[in-house]
């Protein structure tokens, strides 16, 4: 599998945005898995393991979405710190010039 969504020239904010989008995608996967579980529940002939497994995996998707959102937030803080650090010397230089 190739990863084409993360480029070398992406800055931290772009990476944070992608992580957030992926967190939403994982939440979407959770909803779709739950929908499939609901559709199959109670159907004759559907194996017993099927619905619980789908639900369990949907829970994992939910947890993964939360983890990913937390990681995106962490990345956001790092991005903010980096931006502040870059901006600080410039501000100082401008005040010296004045």
């Amino acid at each position, binding site marked *: 599998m190739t990863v084409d*969504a993360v480029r070398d020239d992406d800055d931290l904010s772009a990476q944070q945005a992608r992580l957030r989008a992926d967190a939403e995608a*994982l939440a979407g996967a959770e909803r779709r898995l739950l929908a*499939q579980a609901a559709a199959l529940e109670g159907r004759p002939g559907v194996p017993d393991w099927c619905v619980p497994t789908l639900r369990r995996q949907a*829970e994992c998707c939910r*947890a993964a979405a939360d983890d990913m959102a937390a990681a995106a937030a962490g*990345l956001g*803080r790092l991005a903010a710190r980096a931006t502040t650090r870059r901006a600080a010397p410039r501000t100082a230089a401008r005040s010296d010039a004045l």
Partner: protein
Amino acid sequence: MASHHHAGAAHPAEPGAAETARMLREAALEVSRCALEVRGAAARAGAVLGSPLFARSSLRHPRAGMAAQWSLVRALTSAAGLGFALGGGDGVLKRIGQAGEVCGRESLANRIAVTSLRMRAAAVLAEHPELGRDPGMRRLMDAVTGDRDVEALRALRALLKDKGAERAMSTVAPLFAELSAIRALLDENPLNDEVGWQIATGEALHADPWFGIAARHLAAFDAGEGAAVAVPLDEEERRALGTEGSLMDFLGNIDLLRTDGRILIQDVRGPDGVVRHVLQAPGMAPGKPRNDSPQDFVGAWSNLFDPESPYTRGILLAIDEYGLPAGAEIALVGHSEGGIALMNLAQNNAFCRRFRVTHMVAVGSPIDNKKPADPRTWVASVTNQHDLVPTLDGRGAGSGSVFTPHPDWYEVDYIDSSHEFPLCHTLGKYMGNLEAELAGARRDIDEALTPYRGPVLRSQVYQLKDRANPPQGYPLMAVPVSPVATSAGPVETPVRYYDSTAAVAIFAVDPERVAGLLSDASWMSPSRIGRRVLVALSAYEHRCVSLGPYNELSLAVLVNDLWRPRAHDVVRELLRRADTRRTGRQVTALAVTTPEAAAAGRELWGQPAATALVDVRLAGNRLNATLSGPGGTDAPPLLGLTGDLGPYVPAPHVDSVLYGRTADATLRSMVHCAGRQRFHAAPRLRLRCAPGPAAEEEPLVRQARALGLDGARPLCVFSAPEYQARRGAGAPLPR
């Protein structure tokens, strides 16, 4: 053009089972899409974690950076979340992920993909409850889905033991693709994961699902540029060939051709009077791969993954040779590997620009991952769910119509009462099913093939090969030839010996005895080794010669340079090429079995040739060379060189120079040879000459006796069971 799926009625499922199976497959498709999304998200998160920018920023701001990195690592390794999902990234993280997989850690994406595959398997079990009732099959399913490799192996072994290989294979066949993919995703081998994903998501396979060996590596074994030679059918086959265009006739023709590398092209006049063409291609031959035919196991693998193969190239050459006009309408009908090869042609843009491929009918072929280049091509695929071969493309019964990428094909995926593989893969079995249980499908396909229903106007069979063979005897015999008149008719020179057996026995004799044989040419001196002179008795069985087959026994004395004789020339000269060599063998007596050979011996090479009964046999390590008298082979031979040749070492073939005499010149001829030669340093054979007047009348026997060879053992023997040579006409020397 609708897609049709026929499920057999051998094991009727419960009412509503078909609806449950459809729902399970649709849910499996949706779940596999979720799995792909989870996989993509994990891969992107892994890429962020491994990005140099992130690492640099973390070093500059360790507090915030470490916290961000930790939350990403937690997201990618949490058992309650994405599982161990580092393998989706690149570089070092990917290696760590693969190492985790080797240690048995799984990602959430893989687990969801496995759930999708298990749902597909459940759909098959819903339609065919007999598979689920089979305890061996159930044990195998449990072991594979539970990632217990040893247990899975035991379950498969138990299946093989209980049912025998044939029934076990056909039992597994309907779930083969799913089981392979589940195993690929769950096992500790990270190399085959991609194939597991390809099967789970219905993509074309690019590697084998068991070891993850890339398709291009597998296809590399099927080498060759392809070749096609028009061949006739034998009388019985010609009578059995279909004379009317119809599905069963075409399949019957393919069955008739068997799997020996032949294909058939026919011209059929359709009901509208237009002449169309039908290409019919059989499948692979069972057994070991063969180098002479593309219809073998490696050929089938190659065709499965690679759109170009010796089979397709051979078919194109056959079409060229047949003279199919550009723009002609053509139907392709194939079984097994033949179906894959023809589908490869149908998906070739250049082929479809050249011809109008109207129909493609594949029986028992894994062609689901292929697609015709011309969207107008009508495609029919007939597969038995217990046949393992059509599942090799990763789409088995579990895929159903939900994962099928071509809803406009006419597909017949059925199950019959016989559960024996490979029997259910044979074309005869498929034809039987089409005649009986699948009569409706047969009628549908026949109706689609209506333009090809009519009298067959022309049939031509081609023998396909992996590569074209060089001409016989290449390169030794690739020389210009010219006819030379002899008393027995014209003879082409050089004389070419395509397939012979040779044995040359070297004897050491007293020089005084040899002097008598060479007395008419005082300047010809025998070569000496010490105080002895070397004499060669040569025995040949020439099975395929430009002169016609014959046998030969000859006696020759090794002689020095005719002008500047030096001691021990013979040893030094052996290192020289024949055309620059001055020593040689003076043939003093020659017995051959045909008048043509005798005439050539006398008139081309100046040798004292006579016809006689000569028998030469080299079987294993035993030589039996005899010269018989007028009494024939029933009487004791006049001369015999028989016995065990003893141990040998391989030796290079040395071209030889032979001398003969005419009334006023010496004829020098060269023998260029190829093949493997053996050197026997301690032969245990013996030369024997029969007593009596008949033997005395035979020059070869007389000379052998005069040389004291009766009862002698040779010093050494050179033998060559398979020997090729060419011998030019003798060049006259002024001596």
